[in-house]
Each structure stands twice: as C-alpha cells, then as structure tokens.
C-alpha cells in the first residue's frame, strides 16, 4: 500500500527535474557555446577560448550596442521609476473619480502585444522624424516599464502604515519632507525593485528596438537579433551570456530588496 504514493512522488519529482532541465538547458548551453574556439554555434565545442568575449568587448559594433543598451536602459529606468512611483502613491492612497480608468490606461502596455507597440511607435515617430534617435526608444521603453514599476511599488505601499505620514505631519513635517524622510526610506526596496525590473525590460527588449533604431543606436539584443539573421557567429552567444548575467544579477538584487522590505515592515513600531 505504501508503494504507490512513493512511486507517485518519485514520478512527480522526475517530471519536475525534466521540466527544470527543459526550461534551464537553453540558458545553460549558451555558456559553453560562448567559450568555443571554433567559429560555429555548435555543441560539442571543438576547444575552449575567450576569443568571442574579446570580439564582443572590442568590436565597435558590439561595444556601441552595449553602450547604447546601457544609456537607453538607464534613461528609461529613471523616467519610468519617477513617473511610476508617484503614480503608485496616488493610485494606492487616492480615492478620486476615474481612478480605475486611469489604472486601466496605465496598464495598457502590460497586455498590448509588443509588435503592435513596435509598429505603432515606428509609425508615430516616423511622422515626427524621430526614428533613429535614442530619445524615441527611451520614451517607448519607459512607457513599457512604467506600469511594472507602478505594480511593484503599489504592492510595497500596501503594507506601508500611513499613520507614519500623519505622525510626521503632526511633528511639523510638510508633505515634501514627510515624503523624503518617511515614505521614500520605507518604500525604497519596492522602488529599487521596480527600477531594476524597468532596467531589465529595456535591456532585454528587442522588438521596439528593431523598429526604432538604425545601425548607430542598435542595442545589445537588437545586435544579437540581426546577428542571428545575418551572420551566425559565437559572438552572439557571448553577448547572450552577458544578457543572462545581467538578468541573474538583477534577480539576485531584487531578492535582496524584497528581503529588506520584509525586514523593514517587521520592525516594531
């Protein structure tokens, strides 16, 4: 009688292991491929070498793409985080007419198919002559990331005790001072998490980038994308590993942020 439950558990465990292998293998294989001594994207690799990382870090096409990604990612993160944080405060604490509609409009980028966003931005910015400028891509990426910042900060604000703001006010702090000295420090982990995700969204985004950039503003994913279609070289894998590493760092940082958020909320008041 004890045979079946154990077999069931073992089967479920084996299934889980296979599923994990299935979802992680495509990420893992990029590492050996990026270290290949050959010139093909194949496994097993003929030998080991750092040459493709050298290409990515020295070839002007890749370095320019890397710089573009950093600049566009940083600019859209700042924009999305500032706008998103203020909106999250207003939406969490406010009770004004049309609030649900506003939240719905702000959430549009979350469900809008990315291709429609890409083509629409292309069509819109082309009429203004902004295609091929970093500005257009920064605006588009910030629009894409801001709703995510709103969601993240709203989740963190729900556990924020508003009486603290009133306490601050009773002690003579104006709204700005209370915001700066009470709200921001306590919600900082949420804001930082939102900012990190916003950066990652911009850093990984390729569809809008493929419509709004010319060779000069190509971002890292955009360069990988054209590399896949034009010249398959293991440099793509090296660039992919850089993207994966960035994701890993951001994931680790957000986990740390959320841990801090829980700690802040658990502090005795």
């Amino acid at each position: 009688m004890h045979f079946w439950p154990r077999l069931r558990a073992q089967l479920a465990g084996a299934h889980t292991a296979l599923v994990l292998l299935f979802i992680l293998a495509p990420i893992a294989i990029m590492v050996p491929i990026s270290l290949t001594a050959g010139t093909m994207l194949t496994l097993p690799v003929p030998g080991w070498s750092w040459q493709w990382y050298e290409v990515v870090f020295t070839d002007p096409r890749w370095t320019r793409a890397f710089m573009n990604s950093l600049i566009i990612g940083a600019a859209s993160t700042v924009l999305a985080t500032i706008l998103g944080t203020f909106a999250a405060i207003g939406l969490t604490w406010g009770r004004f007419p049309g609030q649900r509609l506003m939240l719905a409009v702000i959430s549009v980028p979350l469900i809008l198919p990315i291709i429609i966003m890409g083509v629409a931005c292309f069509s819109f910015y082309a009429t203004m002559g902004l295609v091929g400028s970093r500005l257009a891509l920064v605006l588009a990426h910030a629009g894409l990331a801001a709703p995510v910042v709103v969601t993240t900060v709203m989740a963190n604000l729900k556990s924020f005790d508003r009486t603290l703001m009133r306490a601050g006010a009773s002690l003579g702090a104006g709204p700005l001072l209370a915001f700066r000295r009470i709200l921001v420090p306590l919600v900082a982990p949420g804001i930082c998490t939102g900012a990190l995700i916003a950066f990652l969204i911009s850093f990984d985004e390729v569809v809008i980038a493929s419509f709004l950039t010319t060779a000069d503003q190509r971002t890292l994913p955009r360069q990988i994308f054209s590399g896949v279609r034009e010249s398959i070289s293991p440099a793509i894998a090296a660039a992919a590993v850089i993207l994966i590493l960035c994701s890993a760092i951001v994931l680790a940082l957000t986990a740390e942020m959320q841990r801090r958020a829980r700690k802040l909320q658990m502090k005795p008041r």
Partner: protein
Amino acid sequence: MTQADSIQRETYRAPGFWRSVFSKILFGAEMRHFALVLPLLLFILVTVVVPVGHFLYRAIDNSTLANNLPHAAASLENWQPQDGVPGNATFAAFAADIRAAVAAETLGQMAQSLNQQLTGTRNMMLKAGLMVDDSITDLNAKDMLLAKLPGLANVKMWMLVKAGRSSFTDFYLLQSLDLERNLNGEIAAVAPDRSIFLAAIWRTIVISINVTLICALLALPVAHVLASARPPYAGILLALVLFPLWTSLLVRTVSWIIILQGEGPVNTSLQFLGLIDDPLHLVYTRGSLYIAMVQVLLPLMILSILAVVVKLPKELVRAATSLGADWWQAYWRVQLPLIAPGIVTGAGIVFVFALGYYITPALIGGPRDQMLSSYVALYTNKTLNWGLAAALALQLLLVLAVAMLGWAAFQKLSRGKS
C-alpha cells in the same frame, strides 16, 4: 432634516466657506493624489495610447486618396461600375488632380496608396505624373491617357477613385478577413488562392490554445512538487523556475535554434546513438515553435498554479481518503476543483501572451507557422502597407479582447459559485 434646517444650510455660509471649498478641491488630498498619477497617465497616453491609436486609424484611413483625387472622385458621383470606363470629364479631372499632386509632391504617396489596393497601379500613376505636363486638354484627356496607360481601362481602378470621395475605407478591414468588394459593390470572399488571413487568425488561436494546454499539463505536477518541498529546497526550486522568466526572450529563442539545428546537440546525439542516419529537420517547424513557446511561458503557468496549491489545506486529501476515496478520486474531485482557479489564471496569462508572440515564431517557426504578429511586422517592414498592417493589428487586439472578456467572465462565474 427639517425644512428650516435645510433653508438655513442653504443660506448661511461661514466666512471663507467658498474659499475653503475651492482650496479643498484644488489643494486637498484627493487633488494631490490625482496630480501624482497625472504625469504617468499623460506619459502613457502620449507614448503608447496615441501612437497605437494613430497606427490603428490607418486601417480605415483613406485620406491620401481623398486629398489627392478630389475632382476625379467628385466627377464619379453618379457613375456605377456597370457603366464601364467613365467619360472624358472624369479623365480631365483625373489629369488635373495628378497635375496638382505632382506640384504638391504627393504623387508617390498616392501611387503607393492606390497600389496597395490594386496591384500594378503604382507605375501607372507615376507614368501619368510624367504625362500630364504634355498636351492633355479637357477635350482629349480620355483618348490621350488611355492610349498610353491601358490600365486606366480597368473598372476596378475607377471604383477606387470613386472611393476617394470618402476619407474612410473598409478595404483593409475586409482584406484582413479575406473579403473584398466585387464590381457591384457587394462584399464577397476573395479567391481561395489569395485568402491567407483567416487561416493566420485561426492558426494564431490554435497555437495559443495548444501552448496553453501543454503548459497546464506540464506545470501541474511541478507546482505540487514545489509546494511540498522543504524550506531550503523550496526557495532554490522557485528561483530555478523564476530565473528563465528574467532572461531575455530572444536569448532563449536563439538557444533553441542552436539546440535543434541540423548540427545541433539533439541531432548529433541521435546520430551518435545510431537512431537516425541523416539529421532531422527540427528547427523552423511547428514542433520547434511549440517547444520554444512552451519553454518561455511555462514558468508563468507554474507560478500561477503554485500560488493556489500552497494555500490548499493538507488535510483535504486525508479527509477525502478517510471517507473512502482512493487517491485519484481525492485528487480529481477534491483537489483539482480547488486548484482550477489557479489554472484558469495561468491559462489566461499564457494564452494572452502567446497570442501576441512575435520574436519566437519569427525566428524559430517556418513560413507556415507564422502568427498574426508576424504578418503585422511583414506588411510594415516589407511593403509599408500600413492599412493592412493596422487592420491585422486590430484583429489581433479583437481576439485578445474576446479572450480577456471570456477570462474575466469565467473568473466572475467561478467566484460567484464559491
């Protein structure tokens, strides 16, 4: 409240009452909250909603023709396709319109717009642009133009010109549903060899449904294992499931191309084992599309189901077993109905994401596996056919809206039950 009371309330205002009402509205807490949301709202409107609206409007926009062919269109007011090629007056107006378009440098635009609705008209219009400077008068316009441009004898061309009386067109919307207007102006299906879009819509829906089902089946046992894992392992397992979600979609898709390609690890190991002699065509097929899409979307399904499974009371199965149910009955009739909301949530998310997928089908699917998104991109990139691209985008949004409404209705229903 007595009448006297209300009269007094109406009439007596403390000094500064209106000022305080005014300042409450303008500087009160609600206004402050509204003012905090406003910048982002405006930003999203300007960077997302307006561009998308501007783009979708192109599905019905006929203003290029309406603005460039006003006289020719007006002269066809009483003309019907059955009347055949219109008379000299129309040709004269047509020549005048082209002359004006050449002067305004909008001829190319107009030719492009016409060409999207009737192939081959672009060159004809450009040639007409070179001709109109010559000796075309109001009297000989028809003979002169028809002699050099036989395409103008096509009645369909004049139907298009007549449609220029309106700034709106249903041409692209009909085309995206494999429909067109025939010579009598009635809506009819296009020839089967030209009908591609209904199949594309259907394919998009079928692929999304299949991906959702596969994800649900694969995710269910994983969610149970994750929910019953002990603390240190539970966190590690969760991180392993989360990690792919955070890595670039593009990277994961490219990786599947490498794995599944002719010289990829799957084919080489199968050959090494002697199971196959020649490499299998695994990449650029429907199968590879399913593999890549499921890999990308599976974590979302696992997380949605996990959120429900962790809240299930452990005693449920024991209670059911004590009442005589075997394991399968306990699972099927007690646990699964309680997990269903999680599955539905996950299915909604996965389905909606799958519908709009572009990168994965574009890179790893074959020509017969392309979804609506790819067609939107195709008509934008290759032919700059904005009208058709926008009409197809509208279809995609429509499918999405129906899916989301159905999902919301289902959730409301299931919540009403429990």
